[in-house]
């Protein structure tokens, strides 16, 4: 069952609308809140007047910093958040919440919110990394990685290297924009709070909200049944969730909030702009001698998130002499956050572009250059072996499918019949295989069905389906009779859906819980004189289709139903926890790997780039569901194209306001931009990474794809674009 391309178990609910998302919860007497956001980037609220808003029929309350209940706005986690919860008159970023209107309907709240009169004492914002007033700082860490690293002696090795690349690469501010905007429905029952929240981790959310409101964690329940995409933006706790709870308590009714699309360019985080200085020293054959990767990451004035772009350079290639640094540059913007493959996606653009530049500088084929610098062990962990690494096969299988060997070495050498310039590009991909402690509960009922739970989140990845398959295999029950449920803090605690860790973390717990309940059933049979399995050994049994049998004599056995009925119980349950301490480093370095190959066509008259073909090969341990894995990879590849060609938050440098705060002007690819994507699933067995051999696949698809496109654009045009996105004007 594991590995089968099972269709989504929640697919029907989603396409019929039966799946209920957080904003669709409709508790009795629910009220609707709309956030008023700032129109300046930094300053003070000089005056705020909710009188007109409050006078509208149906308006229940107008909250501002003058009257909002006091809460601890600096208590949220993860990510060291300091939320802006109407506690003072300071404005720290554009579109910061400055008021909240609660009303009988969404429409009334929206109209009244526009009637809240705010005047500002605006200050001059610093709106770029190089603006006067922007402050560079040394961060304590870079998104849970050491901020700096060094091995060997970079300076002398670089100075002595016969071939040197020394370039700066820029990735822009990017906003997640999941289809489902952030949304929360909050309901109090006395001092107990229930939140239906579009979240990537219900336990993280519970912890944050309990801390903000000074409640015990047991007093907060967070429910997340369906999420329309998160990509990191729903990982940290954001202001609207706390504001919904605040408003609900104040008006004594449940309250729901959904962000507008322009709000999605506000305070819930984004991928920060990076400026990455890459220096590579190599010998004339292309062998790496030295590599420095120095990152400047856009940062807010008041929190510490840093894009860990240089981390990938520490481990992807064999480089003896290396230095990497991360610095934050604070200016008057909201705080960035995790966005799909934080660090690796932006960092791979710089590293894999620089490797491509080295390939041209040395005349070595880009793929051959990567093989020349291949490392079998992790140079960032003192040569520790990888639990598994199948990157060679990703290169080989991807290149074969793509026809990389047909690539002419010259640039600007090929045109289509229509006169478009043709270019081939490739890049490597990797992402760490992470894991956190998770628990699960499995129950087998006397009708033969099973119910398994773990408080994970399905943010659209297919977690419901994957864990159903894991549970079915462990239990020995067909998937049709297994129901897996998730997304509730009343369930066993699970890892968040972030950092490509949830499947590996929760699957191992679900597996253990399934095995445990199965073994309980077997033990009951063994102990029961009326059972054909009486006195038999557990090791001799097989479990399939809801039945236990002897391996050597399959006709000897009985069903779970029979065991439970004879025992006179309606069900048997087991709880299990798969513990993992991320701080304890094991004997292996754990990563997934992949390789992208792209063909672009560039119109030389207009500078427009269109993808013609894409082949991406990945090896990520055991694949739980090949259909969803393919979709997950494809989504990453599409986003890589988007990062290469389309996405960019465009800030007005005078005001600090992102002016393209909508999906008309914040571009992502449409179907016409994406040709068929050929995903190659490279088989990989990893006996070390975790008991089930699963590596996460949520992020790796995007890593390196931006560089593969940029490298193909260079091959087509002889123009090296080092600042994304690759807009037509950069090629004209």
């Amino acid at each position, binding site marked *: 069952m594991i590995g089968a391309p099972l269709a989504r178990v929640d697919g029907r609910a989603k396409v019929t609308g039966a799946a209920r998302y957080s904003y669709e919860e409709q508790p009795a007497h629910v009220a609707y809140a709309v956030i008023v956001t700032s*129109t300046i980037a930094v300053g003070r609220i000089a005056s705020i007047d909710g009188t007109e808003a409050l006078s509208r029929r149906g308006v229940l309350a107008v909250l501002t910093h003058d009257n909002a209940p006091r809460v601890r706005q600096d208590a949220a986690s993860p990510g060291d958040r300091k939320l802006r919860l109407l506690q003072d008159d300071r404005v720290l970023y554009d579109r910061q919440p400055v008021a909240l209107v609660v009303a009988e309907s969404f*429409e009334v709240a*929206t*109209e009244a919110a*526009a009637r809240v009169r705010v005047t500002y004492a605006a200050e001059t914002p610093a709106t770029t990394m190089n603006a006067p007033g922007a402050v560079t700082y040394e961060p304590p860490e870079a998104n849970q990685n050491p901020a700096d690293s060094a091995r060997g002696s970079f300076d002398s090795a670089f100075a002595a290297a016969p071939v040197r690349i020394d370039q700066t690469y820029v990735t822009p501010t990017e906003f997640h924009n999941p289809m489902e905007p952030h949304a929360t429905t909050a309901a109090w029952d006395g001092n107990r709070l229930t939140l239906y929240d579009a979240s990537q981790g219900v336990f993280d959310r519970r912890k944050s909200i309990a801390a903000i409101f000074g409640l015990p964690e047991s007093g907060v329940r967070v429910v997340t049944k369906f999420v329309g995409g998160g990509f990191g933006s729903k990982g940290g706790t954001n202001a609207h969730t706390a504001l919904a709870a605040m408003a609900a308590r104040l008006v004594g009714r449940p309250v729901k909030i959904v962000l507008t699309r322009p709000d999605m360019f506000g305070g819930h985080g984004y991928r920060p702009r990076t400026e990455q200085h890459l220096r590579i020293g190599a010998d004339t054959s292309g062998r790496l001698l030295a590599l420095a990767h120095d990152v400047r990451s856009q940062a807010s004035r008041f929190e510490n998130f840093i894009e860990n772009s240089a981390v990938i350079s520490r481990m992807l290639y064999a480089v003896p002499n290396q230095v990497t640094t991360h610095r934050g540059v604070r200016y008057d913007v909201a705080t960035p956050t995790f966005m799909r493959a934080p660090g690796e996606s932006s960092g791979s653009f710089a590293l894999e572009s620089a490797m491509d530049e080295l390939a041209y500088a040395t005349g070595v084929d880009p793929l051959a250059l990567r093989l020349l610098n291949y490392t079998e062990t992790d140079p960032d962990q003192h040569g520790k072996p990888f639990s598994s690494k199948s990157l060679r096969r990703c290169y080989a299988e991807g290149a074969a499918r793509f026809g990389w060997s047909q690539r002419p070495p010259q640039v600007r050498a090929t045109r289509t019949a229509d006169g478009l310039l043709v270019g081939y590009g490739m890049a490597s991909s990797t992402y760490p295989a992470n894991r956190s402690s998770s628990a699960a509960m499995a129950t087998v009922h006397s009708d033969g069905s099973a119910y398994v739970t773990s408080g994970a989140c399905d943010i659209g990845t297919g977690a419901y389906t994957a864990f159903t398959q894991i549970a079915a295999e462990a239990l020995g029950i067909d998937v049709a009779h297994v129901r897996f449920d998730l997304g509730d803090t009343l369930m066993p605690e699970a890892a968040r859906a972030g950092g490509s860790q949830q499947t590996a973390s929760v699957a191992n717990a679900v597996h253990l819980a399934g095995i445990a309940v199965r073994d309980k059933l077997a033990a009951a049979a063994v102990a029961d004189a009326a059972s054909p399995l009486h006195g038999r050994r557990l090791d001799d049994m097989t479990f399939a289709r809801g039945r236990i049998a002897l391996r050597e004599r399959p006709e000897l056995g009985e069903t779970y139903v029979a065991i439970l009925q004879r025992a006179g119980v309606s069900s048997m349950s087991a709880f299990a926890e798969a513990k993992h301490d991320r701080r304890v480093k094991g004997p292996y370095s754990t990563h997934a790997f992949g390789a992208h190959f792209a063909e672009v066509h560039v119109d030389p*008259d*207009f*500078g*427009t780039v*269109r993808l013609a073909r894409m082949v991406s090969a990945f090896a990520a341990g055991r694949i739980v569901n090949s259909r969803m894995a393919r979709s997950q990879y494809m989504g990453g590849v599409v986003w890589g194209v988007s990062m290469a*060609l*389309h996405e960019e938050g*465009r800030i*007005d440098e*005078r*005001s600090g*306001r992102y*002016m*393209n705060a909508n999906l*008309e*002007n914040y*571009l992502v*690819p*449409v*179907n*016409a*931009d994406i040709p068929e994507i050929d995903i190659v699933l490279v088989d990989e067995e990893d006996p070390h990474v975790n008991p089930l051999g699963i590596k996460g696949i949520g992020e790796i698809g995007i890593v390196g794809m931006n560089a593969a496109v940029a490298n193909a654009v260079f091959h087509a045009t002889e123009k090296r674009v080092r600042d994304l996105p690759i*807009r*037509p*004007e950069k090629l*004209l």
Partner: protein
Amino acid sequence: MRPFSYARARTEQDAFSTLAQTARGAYLAGGTNLIDLIKLEVAKPDAVIDINALPLAAIETTPSGELRIGALARMSDTADHPALRSAAPAISQALNLSASAQLRNMATIGGNVLQRTRCVYFRDISQPCNKRRPGSGCSAIGGDDRKMAILGANDRCIAVHPSDFAVAMLLVDATIHLRGPAGERTVPFLGFHRLPDDPSRDTNIQPGELITALTFMPSALTRSSTYIKVRDRASYEFALVSVAAALEVTGGTIRDARIGLGGVAHAPWRSREAEAVLIGKVPSRDLFTAAAEAGLQAAVPQRLNRFKIRMAKNAMIRALTSVGMPA
């Protein structure tokens, strides 16, 4: 969004009289622009008068041979109309390159001509804008001006007209039929849209007037036309630049020419300078290049959009090559 009243007009007179009773009433056709603007509070009508029931959706060839497109004809129906496709392929192409299939199924031809700029400063009421609030200033100047005008702009407004269809309509010497409380009138399509002398006025339509139809006489010129649109992504985006071109070539000589440019000015931009270079000459790559140079001679880029000049020239050369020297 502010509350407004809603009424459905059964006749044109009904629409006029209902509007007359309001302070800031607005006609609603496809709604693909007006509803947006109401949500953004850029438009703040106190009344919305739905004109979709008026019998103005027909696309027909008149007895005199003119093509008549009713103002309420949907973009999709217009684009796919066989008579239009042969009479002026550029118009058909421009419509099919606009918006998305869903929007084209809703949006009307009259509304398309009257749609307002997509300038991000115009559409964000927290920002000063002379078009929204005359005299408040133009925030686009010195701001994110990548998509703004390179022709005919001034220090009051650098917004561009978003329509593809209107650019293609420049090729066919169309007539706009208007009806209002004061009666009926016709105006040439060319000159209907204004340059930003008074940015608050996009067109010369008068208060209370409705566009009822667009008409034009197909000719050898209009039948030999094409439309090219350049944008950041392959579909579902307004033009960075676009070119509509029509050439009548007989005996190896260009007898007549029309060139329209989109994405470059406050109005769909007819390039008489480019046309003048072409007429009477033999089609050639050099000639088309000279026409493109002449057409963009007066261009003045903003901070971030100098590229539009080259892009527009290249688009013009390609469009002219496609109609004037087909492979």
